[in-house]
């Protein structure tokens, strides 16, 4: 059956997310009748089965969410949310040492922004993923890290410096950028979890 994925199009690597989800749907043989669409206004959120909150500048994206009245429709969104890097910060319950914006509190986690330092410290690394035999190639760009997880949260991947991937109900939150590497396993996992 067709599935509709919305990618929050406020700022950041939106086109990479659109492309990654289109590839994943094709790999799953579910591209017919499905659509992956950019979401630019609050009214477009409800029609989707899944929502992706892309990477970008979390401060900028958070401000746009509020200016465009998207906070409430995202909080009330019944489908799954795929949150990447800045998106993970936006969906967290708390952000360490940052009072400039209040995160949405959809994922029961605390995150630390720019946990590894500045761009010079951005890195690529192969990760062990829970339930996967093959490692996952992860691209960390000025990435956050998860410093606390609540009871409902499953930890999917961690590195010595902290937790970098989690699941909670139908939501996925990752500190790195799966849309920038070729591997579509995480997108496929998210699509399966939507149970559309």
């Amino acid at each position, binding site marked *: 059956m067709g599935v509709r994925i919305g990618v929050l199009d*406020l*700022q*950041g690597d939106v*086109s990479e997310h659109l492309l990654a989800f289109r590839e994943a749907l094709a790999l799953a043989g579910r591209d017919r009748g499905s659509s992956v669409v950019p979401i630019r206004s609050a009214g477009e959120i409800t029609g989707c089965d899944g929502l992706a909150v892309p990477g970008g500048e979390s401060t900028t994206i958070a401000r746009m969410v509020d200016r465009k009245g998207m906070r409430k429709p995202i909080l009330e969104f019944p489908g799954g949310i795929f949150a990447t890097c*800045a998106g993970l910060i936006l969906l967290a319950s708390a952000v360490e040492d940052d009072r400039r914006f209040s995160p949405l509190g959809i994922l029961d986690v605390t995150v630390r922004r720019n946990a590894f330092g500045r*761009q010079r410290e951005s890195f690529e690394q192969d990760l062990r993923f829970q339930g996967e035999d093959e490692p996952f190639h992860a691209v960390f*760009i000025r990435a956050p890290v998860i410093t606390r997880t609540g009871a409902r949260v499953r930890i999917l991947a961690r590195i010595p410096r902290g937790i970098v991937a989690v699941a909670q109900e139908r939501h996925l939150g990752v500190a790195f950028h799966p849309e920038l590497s070729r591997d579509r396993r995480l997108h496929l996992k998210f699509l399966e979890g939507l149970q559309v």
Partner: protein
Amino acid sequence: MKLEELRFGTELLKRGFASMQKGGVIMDVVNADQARVAEEAGAVAVMALERVPADIRKAGGVARMADPARITEIMEAVSIPVMAKVRIGHFVEAQVLEALAVDMIDESEVLTPADEQFHIDKTKFTVPFVCGARDLGEALRRIREGAAMIRTKGEAGTGNVVEAVRHMRNIMGEIRALQGRSRQEMADRARALEAPVELVIECAERGRLPVVNFSAGGIATPTDAAMMMQLGADGVFVGSGIFLSSNPSRMARAIVEAVHHYDDPKAIADASRDLGEAMKGLDIHLLAKEEVLQTRGR
């Protein structure tokens, strides 16, 4: 690649950083207060400078990398990425900025060039670079040297968008003209552009530059910014246009709004209301030849 092994400064990390800036506004700032105003308005990054380009024009003399104390002050004031400029070819200024851990280095024609033959070999750095370009050849030569992001040059410090428009139209038009050509014709074109044929083919296939392409050099109003987005920019740099306007905080926010709603004239109209005076600006045709910045570095 072994598990646990970390890789830094790869092409993917550099271009990926630029991708995270897309749809955003990068603002020139000269101190911590301005940086905070920019961040508050929704800038995706700030460019730390000693003077904004219009003031560099007025000051005359040799324009160089900003004082590290100034750059550090700005880095400490905000959590968004901080970029800074080096002179074309001045690889030691770039080494210094990398040591300071700025997030991106702009090898910029706004400063006085340090080398008239070579640009910096940007592949030797961990920090990504953005470079200016007026046409496809310049853009692809910079990408070959390792630039992770391109910005059209425009004419900095004029508050006049005409050159930014010219350069964006040049690049997008030259890419459109490649499409439908045979590989032989593209190889021929690559020779004329003094650029690698693989990059020329990639442009033709994707209908755009292989890296993120922002617009810069003369954007002074929300409508200027939205026009550059409609012409194909992935985002905009605003130099003098914000802090030389009469109400920088409102102008900054309005330009952020206009970049987001670039295809919605009504939203751009709302963003443009009651902004006060935009920067005064200069007629490009009245600039003396030696005052033109865009011809520096080719």
